[in-house]
Every structure is written in structure tokens, then in C-alpha cells.
């Protein structure tokens, strides 16, 4: 079987640095990822707890504030390989694009996670654009 690969992106009318403050904070994922009810963070080890009752241990691989790239790997036994990447890309002073990508083996896991990533981006945009920062 091939590796499963998915990618979602969204444009947010806020600066990349503002969005990165939340999206790049490993301890705040549950604030904008629907279906993650809580998490435990210990250095580069993170465990997320899902609304469906499952917990997923993760290794944080990259948290690069300059490149605004966050990368992590789920270490559940069902995954032969997993890599999730969140990129916040500036599109001007008050506009950015957030790209959430996932590669996984087994490939079906990428698709299962995909729905959560898609909803997370929707929620991130909603929260960011509700925030008090001026969009101009």
C-alpha cells in the first residue's frame, strides 16, 4: 500500500505572527482542534485525548517559530509512519495561509485524521477572525 497523504489549507485574515501564536503553541492544540478535549505536554512529548475516548501519544519533531512550521508524529502502534505538519505562511501584513498536512502508513489513517484537520482549520480561522486584532 502507498503512504496516505492529505493536505488542507485555509486563508485567515490575520497576520501570520498572530496566527502562529496559537497554531504553533504545542500546549494549546485542544483550544482549536475540535474533538481533542485535552492534552498533556512534557517537553517534546505530547499526549492528546480525543472526544471518542482514544488517547494518542505524539513526538514533537519541529517547532520552528522563524519558519512558522510545527511538525509532529503520532506514536500509536497502529502507525507504521505518521507525520503531521502545520505551516503558517504570510500572505501580507494581515493575511496568512495555514496548511495542515498529514502523511501516514497505514494510508487510511491519513484520511481518518484528515477530517479532524479540516475542522481544526475552520475553527482556527473562526477564532482568529473573531479576535480583537484589527484586520487592516
Amino acid at each position, binding site marked *: 500500500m502507498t503512504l496516505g497523504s492529505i493536505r488542507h489549507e485555509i486563508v485567515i485574515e490575520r497576520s501570520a505572527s498572530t496566527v502562529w501564536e496559537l497554531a504553533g503553541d504545542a500546549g494549546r492544540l485542544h483550544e482549536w482542534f475540535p474533538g481533542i478535549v485535552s492534552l498533556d505536554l512534557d517537553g517534546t512529548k505530547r499526549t492528546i485525548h480525543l472526544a471518542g475516548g482514544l488517547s494518542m501519544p505524539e513526538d514533537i519533531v519541529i517547532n520552528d517559530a522563524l519558519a512558522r512550521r510545527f511538525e509532529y508524529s503520532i506514536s500509536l502502534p497502529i502507525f507504521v509512519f505518521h507525520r503531521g505538519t502545520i505551516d503558517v505562511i504570510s500572505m501580507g501584513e494581515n493575511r496568512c495561509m495555514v496548511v495542515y498536512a498529514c502523511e501516514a502508513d*497505514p*494510508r*487510511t489513517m491519513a*484520511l481518518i485524521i*484528515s*477530517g479532524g484537520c479540516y*475542522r481544526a482549520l475552520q475553527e482556527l480561522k473562526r477564532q482568529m477572525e473573531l479576535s480583537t486584532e484589527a484586520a487592516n
Partner: protein
Amino acid sequence: MARKILFITTDQQRYDTLRCNGGTVARTPVADRLAAEGVRYERAVPQSVVCMPSRSTIITGQSPSTHGVWMNGVPLPVDAPSVAEVLHEAGYRTALIGKPHFEPFLDPFNAFAENRFAGGEPVNGHRGFDHFIAATHGAAGSLAYSRFIQSEHPEVAGGFYPVLDGELEVNAMGGGETGMPQLWTNPIPKEWYHTDWCADQAITWLNGVSEEEDFFLWLSFPDPHHPQDVPSSELGRINWRDLDLPAAYPEDRLVREAILDAKPAHWRAWYDGTLVSNYEAPAKWVPATLTPDQIREFTAYNAIACELIGEAIGRVIASLEARGIADDVDIVFSTDHGDLGGDFGLAFKGPYHVDGLMRLPLIWRPSRSADIAPSVVTSPVGLIDLAPTFCAIAGIPVPQWMEGKPLPISDDDAEARKFERVLTEWDSELFGVAMHLRTITRGDWVLTTYLPGTTANGTEGELYNLVEDPNQFVNLWDDPASASMRTDLLDDLWAHQPKQLMPLRTLVAPV
């Protein structure tokens, strides 16, 4: 008081599984009686041959292009139009019992309401239903039937076939005596199996509805969809060794493969195991390995599932008869799509618009007060016509957003109201493989045209004469003598094809 509606669906049931449709394996006296007393449709066609788009068509009365559920794994928005909502607003009590599948099952983030109701979340009129109690093909997951097995009979939970394998692909593991994939010996007692459980839930709900109240009950059996894991106590009903092979299965391998080679390339590629275009069949299974005995054993298990459903429906109807209201109820029986069932050496389903998947059982037994004479309708009708039919039964104007028409009650009625064509769509884009089919069924013909995709460049197609070639062995797409028919059908298809909702809704799960 209007007319009450009992709408019964199965999942993935072939037309030829019913005796009244010419079937010879399963004994189906309940469906046969409904057909004798009502209207039996000989060319009922789905608008999609997989569950989520087809079920979304049933509830919305819209084509997949319009409701936007273009493949499995794309949820129908919670605020999408719903015939149940229309009936609810007209005063009907409404319930869905059994398999819904308007939303994905694989849901670790608990994002979809269908998966949360059994955990205590209020139904609150979800999609227009007052009562919503869900089941699917086994005991895994969070639906009400799964919780029933896990809490009341945990000792049998492991007896079901594991639908998915360790990589969450549709399982190719074989069972039974022949090693047929998705076939299994399940020791569960019949009364705990989901078929009887759904019927029990339906009877309980119906007994809570007074004789004066109108109701719309969608009773949605998960079977005979794979896995074929009916209770082992029932396996003595049919000896698979006694069965004939399907008419659309040429036993000569060379003949079979020549038929496949005359169809667009993905047919042979799937058969040979070089292309898996969709999630709904076992990805690690190579259809070319399918043996005649595996087809026979599949047919037997599938027929037993159909028999059990028929008997369960019989119990539901008997409960209505016991209360003296059975004659006041319109009973509609159908399914969401068919199964390849061994035809052409293939099984399960995929982008293959032939009778195994496209010709469906459909029976409407009107209430006595409707005064509709029994008949057989040969004109093509679609599942898209069900929602408007329910409106008509209830005496409600058909909403403008519905794209179908109330079902005809005879061929004369069909001719008068111009039931001339039915359209079917397939779209899938999964793991780098894209398939896009558009099909028209009209008169004696079915035509499928392929839009550009992984194996198609947009020039491929299939054209079959359903009367002269009932097994769809001879693809006339490139036959010069059929060129004018091909052009006419293509023009007709594109003249009536609804505009597709764009951008496509996001795929959020495999199924």
C-alpha cells in the same frame, strides 16, 4: 389523519434476490406478498452505487451533484433538506431505526451526531427524526446496536467478522468453507443479530404510536451488505453446493476476461489487482482469484441474510396487523444499491454501472385507502423519486428542492408523467486515483460516459442493450451500428445532468 408510511431499506441488495423479481435462491414470501398487493418496479435505479451518496439522495430527493455527497466519506450537512423534516412539520411522528450513514462511521474525534446519539446526546429532531437509533454491520463503534451488544452480550461481540483489517482497509480475510473474503461464521444467536434487533426496535417504537397518529418510520437494515456473517444457526437454510452460478459469470476464464477487456480499462485492472479505485471493496483482494465455489457460498450467505430480513419485516407487519392498522400503512421496500455478487468475476462494489449494482428491488404496497391497483412498472424510476413519493402519500406538495417525482403506479402513469430516464453518477478521488462516471438508463439502454480520470481520458464509455444483452456482456460503445443511439443518449444525459455543486465538499473520512 393522513396515510402512515413504513419505509424499509436494506443495504446493498441485488434485484434478483427476491423471488418476485425472478430470484431462485432466497425464499422471500413477505416481499413477494407486498409486490402482489402493490406496485413492483422492474427498473429502479440508484443515483449512486455506494451508501452515503445514495442514502443522501433518498432523504433529500436530490441527485449527488445537488446534495453534494459526491463519494463515501463526505458527510451530508446536518441542515441539508430532508423529507423526514417535511413530514415532521406536517405532523408526522418520525423515526429512523437501523443504518443511517449520512455521516462517516470512522469518527475518532466524535464529530458526527449519528455517532453520538447512543452516548446520550439528544436527537433533537436530527434531520427531521424524533427518534434515531442506529446500527451498522457489527458490534464495533459507538452506535446503539454496538452498545447493545457490548453491554448486554459482550461474549458475542467478537463473533462478527472484522470489517476492517489492522491497517483499517476493508478486510480481505476469507472465511466459510471456501475462503471467500468478508464471509464468516458468526455464532451470535439470531435474536441478537442486527436484523432482528432492528425489527424489535421498530416494533417497540410503533407500539408507542397511537392509531390516530401518522408516522414515518425508516427501518434501515444493515444487511445483506458485506460482511456476510449471518448467525451460524441459519446456515442450514441453503446449501451453497447446490447453487447455480450467476448468469453474468462466465465460468470460462478466457470468455470472462474478454468481456472485461471490452469495457473501460479500470474493469480489467481491478480484476487483475493492478488498480484499486475505491475504498468499498477489500484493497488487498485480487478479484481474478475469485472461484466459482466462493461465488456460490457468497450467494448462499447473502440469500440467508435476505431471508432473515424478510422474516423480520414480516414480524413488523404482523405487529401492525395485530393492532388493525396494517391496511392504513403505505409500505415501501427498497435498498440503496446492489452488489456485483460474482458478475464478471467481481464482487462488492465500485465504479461499475451495470445491473448487479444498478438494478434494485423496489416495491410500494399502498395503503388500502389509496385504492391503487396492483401493477408492475417497467419504466425507469430512481431512488430520487422516493422522497417526493412520501410527500405525495402524506398529501403534501412536493418541495421545489426535490428533483424527483412521485413514483408512477403503472406504466400508463409512467408514460403520462414522462418517466423516461434515470441518471446515475460516480465520483471518487482517493489516494491518487480519480474516477468520474455519468450514466443514463433509458428504455432498453444504459449508457455510461467517463470523464477524465486516472484510467480514462474522457473518450471511454459503455453502451448496453438491456433487452438483447441482459448481462451487459457486449459493450456497444464503439459499435458503428449503435453510434446514433450513443449520440442520442449522450445528448439526453447532458441535457438533464444537474449542475454539480462546486467546490466539491471535503472528504473527511474513508467511509
